[in-house]
């Protein structure tokens, strides 16, 4: 029998592995990824678009979305700038303990987000190591705490995207710029930065996507106060616990669409973003 299949494959150019493997991939993808996504949209609109819309424009829902975007934006801005600096320093200079620094920066990838949130509470909380020194200024359970948690959790993302580009970038470009007469700053602005455009945009989108969806650390440091420190994922969790499935669903749809948009940009703008790589 095996011989017969082999002969079919060779004579007719029929490869049994092709339909089988494609079938397995599709068969796994459908129930594991596609169906859950689809169900959000099906349930969210099952009671009519009116219900969906009113759940969406509820003040608390709008606030949660705005807060999520606001905190994610600042965490992204910080981490992209820091990631750029860290990538520059760590790929240009060799110093004692350099690898230890790289490991430390990358550490948050491996730490459970709940642990990260807990650690931040212990540090900045009213009785925390540093929180005690704030003279009663409450940092935890505010929007700043959320930004802090987002920064911690998304710390390595932008760095991880930008550093390889720095590593592979030819030093002679910067040397050429210097011999032509450019200052360090001019070289960075006109020569180095343009080549990093793709990596910066990509790193920023990844960071933002991750920050918007952050739950584990946020719920610990924010206090989950509706209308004050409740981000979109926390809102979904809270409404679900209260049994308000429609309210949770409306925000879930918005977050799903947002991530879909971000991913489309990352995927389809890849050519534009990596335009430089071809030029080299």
């Amino acid at each position, binding site marked *: 029998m095996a011989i017969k299949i082999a002969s079919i494959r060779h004579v007719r150019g029929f490869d049994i592995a092709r339909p089988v493997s494609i079938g397995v991939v599709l068969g796994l993808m459908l129930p594991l990824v596609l169906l859950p996504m689809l169900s959000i949209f099906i349930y969210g609109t099952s009671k009519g678009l009116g219900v969906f819309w009113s759940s969406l424009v509820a003040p608390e829902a709008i606030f949660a979305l705005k807060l999520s975007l606001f905190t994610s934006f600042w965490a992204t801005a910080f981490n992209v700038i820091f990631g750029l600096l860290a990538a520059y320093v760590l790929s240009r200079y060799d110093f004692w303990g350099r690898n230890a620094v790289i490991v430390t920066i990358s550490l948050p990838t491996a730490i459970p987000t709940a642990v990260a949130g807990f650690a931040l509470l212990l540090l900045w909380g009213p009785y925390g190591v540093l929180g005690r020194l704030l003279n009663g200024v409450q940092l935890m359970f505010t929007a700043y705490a959320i930004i802090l948690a987002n920064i911690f959790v998304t710390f390595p993302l932008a760095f991880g995207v930008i550093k390889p580009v720095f590593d592979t970038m030819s030093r002679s470009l910067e040397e050429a710029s210097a011999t032509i007469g450019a200052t360090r700053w001019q070289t960075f602005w006109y020569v180095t930065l343009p080549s990093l455009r793709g990596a910066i945009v990509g790193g920023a989108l990844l960071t933002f996507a991750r920050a918007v969806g952050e739950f584990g650390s946020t719920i610990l440091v924010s206090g989950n106060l509706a209308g004050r420190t409740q981000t979109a994922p926390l809102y979904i969790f809270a409404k679900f616990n209260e049994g308000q499935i429609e309210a949770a669903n409306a925000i879930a749809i918005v977050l799903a669409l947002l991530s879909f948009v971000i991913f489309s940009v990352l995927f389809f703008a890849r050519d534009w973003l990596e335009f430089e790589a071809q*030029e080299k």
Partner: protein
Amino acid sequence: MSAKLKTPDTAELHESWAPERQKRNGLAASVQGLSKRFKKSRVLEDVSFDVAEGESLVLLGASGSGKTTILRIIAGLEQPDKGRVILHGKDVTDLPARERGVGVIFQSYALFPRMTVEKNIAFGLKIRRRPRKERRETVNRLLELVRLEEHRKKHPWQLSGGQQQRVAIARTLAYKPQVLLFDEPFGALDAQTRVHLRREIRALLKEVKVPTVFVTHDQEEALEMGDHIAVLNEGHLEQVGTPDEVYNHPASEYVATFLGAANLLVGVVTGGAIEIGTARLPAEKETRRFREGQSVKLVFRPEDVCISQDANLAEGCRRLANGVIEEVSFVGAYERLNIRLDLTHRRQSQDEPPLYQVTVNTPERMTGVPIMATRPKPEASATRFKPGDRVAVGLTSFSVLPNYTLARQR
């Protein structure tokens, strides 16, 4: 391809790309006593040379000889441990790269990938904050000079290697560099393009009259591109001279063997001649700087060997010894002969005919000293040789070098 470069109506351009401090017949660049170590290894050892105005100097050496390090030190991308770099009379050793105003053409060209050809060329003027009008005019003239007008809006990756190189040159000419530095400029190109580009760049440099330093490991390239050649060996400058000097009168065995094929025989100076075994090569002039009985090396190129089947050698050809043809092979443009020299036979007495005691078929063959000779095609077809033929061997030109037993004595 060199014809593509403009010559007639660019007369007004001639002086304009050269650095402003340029003086006639002065020194464009001078490197004095450069020494450099990387960790434990010595990269450069007391290297000094000068580049005259408008001329090109080639730094020739094997990889690891320190030639690129010298280039980077002149450019300011590397600091020497000792020594000075002087450009047009000004000591720039302590200046950073960006204040030296040199033009470096990197092996990879290092064009800015984000910028078009135009913007690459204008970059030097842009950061010098020159007015837009001046920038545009300079770019136009340079695009015309390097024949890339129709490619002005393209990005570097859309150009061929040769075109990229011309952009790189134009980019440096825009700010009137003190000196142009080429780092292995043709290393990344195939053999045919390389020859084309060499001529093209040579013509371009003659036109713009900017002093130039080339770095290469290719001796043919060095002979073609350089007004002067500096031969480097493991961080040590072996010889500086015109292509004719370094090729025909090498100052050391290294120079002789690095610039093409060379035969080498060890002999002793005796009474205005060099004695090699039983052979005696009259060399009154060449041995004048040596003392009687000093051990010397006789260095000569394969094309400087003349041979004849009778004892009569051509005019200007000094008889060395007898020999036997061991192998004949055609190598394209010329014929190559492997010859065994007979350096052990007894002196001929007056009435004896020339003796050829070395043969290919006897054990004596092993006593013959091998040398290589080449003959141009016309000569090769006029008189054919086959292995075993006995010939008289003479030299038209050769160099005599001291044969130090210790390398340190150099």
